[in-house]
């Protein structure tokens, strides 16, 4: 394994992220809107239904959302690199395709976790209070798993897409459903059977559940299940992503 190459490609993603200030700030808009509009808007009803403080419930979901979006987008960036030719430069270098894919994925995932941390800090200002600080490392572990999973998914998708015209389709028919059906906005218990099944096959549901549990909310599936499901799916997506990435022709 060529660790220098992986590090180089990881670092590249971070440099690019640090240069895109407008993108960083721009992508904080949506989570803030969700927290304020939904958090405060549905708060009273949520409380009346006997479920407690909605902001406390919603914050982990919104953190997961920002990681999901940033990660998928970081993966999809492969399309831009193809378009602007940079992908060729990495592919003629003495580095295997697998190493390129791992470096990019780790870089994209790190960026997504950073974005998640920024949103986490914002939730604290809005009134979110995590209850078990000693569980923060577990929170970070879940953040990283979510980030890895969806960066790998983004890379896999980008490897079979010709250009960005398909991006809307991916957003509306894959990423948005993954978010809305993950239980990020509603408690995943007592659901109609069909929805319950869908939530159970949505990988983000396990990420949201893990974040929620480690930040002091009631856990639905349990830490063990969350870790196991996410871990296995991460491995599957990285394998699928590497395979599809290795078949890209430039």
């Amino acid at each position, binding site marked *: 394994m060529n660790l220098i190459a992986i590090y180089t490609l990881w670092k590249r993603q971070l440099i690019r992220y640090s240069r895109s200030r407008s993108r960083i700030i721009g992508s904080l808009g949506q989570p803030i809107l969700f927290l304020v509009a939904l958090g405060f808007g549905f708060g009273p009803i949520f409380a009346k239904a006997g479920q407690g403080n909605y902001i406390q419930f919603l914050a982990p979901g919104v953190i997961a959302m920002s990681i999901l979006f940033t990660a998928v987008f970081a993966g999809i960036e492969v399309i831009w690199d193809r*378009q602007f030719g940079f992908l060729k430069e990495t592919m003629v270098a003495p580095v295997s395709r697998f190493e390129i894919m791992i470096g990019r994925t780790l870089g994209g995932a790190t960026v997504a976790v950073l974005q998640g941390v920024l949103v986490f800090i914002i939730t604290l200002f809005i009134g979110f209070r995590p209850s078990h600080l000693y569980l923060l490392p577990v929170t970070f572990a879940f953040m990283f798993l979510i980030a890895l999973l969806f960066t790998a998914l983004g890379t896999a998708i980008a490897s079979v897409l*010709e250009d960005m015209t398909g991006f809307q389709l991916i957003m509306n028919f894959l990423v948005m459903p993954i978010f809305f059906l993950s239980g990020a906005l509603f408690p995943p218990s007592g659901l109609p059977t069909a929805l319950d099944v869908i939530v159970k096959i949505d990988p983000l549901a396990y990420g949201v559940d893990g974040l929620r549990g480690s930040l002091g909310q009631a856990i639905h599936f349990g830490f063990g299940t969350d870790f196991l499901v996410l871990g296995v799916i991460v491995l599957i997506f990285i394998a699928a992503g590497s395979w599809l990435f290795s078949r890209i022709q430039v």
Partner: protein
Amino acid sequence: MSILRQMRFCSSITFMENIIEIKNLTKKYGDFTAVNDISFHVKKGEVFAFLGPNGAGKTTTIKMLTTLLSPTSGSIKMDGADTLRNQNKVRATFGIVFQDPSLDDELTAYENMDMHGMLYKMPTKERKERIKMLLEFVELWDRKDSLVKQFSGGMKRRLEIARGFMHKPKILFLDEPTVGLDPQTRNHIWSYLKKLNQEEGLTVFLTTHHMEEADRVSDRIAIIDHGKIITEGSAAELKKRTNTTSLEEAFLALTGKEVRPEEASTADTLRSQRRMWRR
């Protein structure tokens, strides 16, 4: 000029071994044969021009040589290593300047060079020295911390050429290298290439549509058309064989005057945004 040629001739006698050996190379896309059973070699220390009309199989051949594409059949050896079995070794031996841009626009000139050096496992100190030397050579040192997206087309080209040299390759592929360069820069870069060619035995594999340039710089020329090598030899030999006075005329005599249909490259299709899914 003739002294230069003689010097090169002498140096090529001492390095007679073949640095690129291509045997029965074929690439098929379904029914279409892009490259049809070609065999040729490039000697170490040679400036080799690979010419042909659009769609003749040039780009496909270069992609196979540079490990971007695997052949349907046949074999390629670069500096003794097989492009299929020993990919990374092959990749370390060559540098390439692509026809289309391949820089990261969001990084600075320095970062682009540095990243290249790291991907080729160059030690930090050597990287620093080499970046300074090369960026000074292409007159971009004072712009080293500017983002590449702020560069003009010519500056990007110079940076790509500098990057191609970064890891001290034994073979340098130049795919239409001087498009967009003014005569001053072109001349500057060619005199450096020749210096490296003579002093370090750098092998240059060049494609160009610029026949005058090919005539001036190359030791040997191969012309490919319809996926077949139709002729090989020095510029003088080709002219003699076709009874013409310039390489351009020789080229036209060999490949005909008909204008070739051209297929859009991936980059073109990406730019025109027509298809969405691959295949």
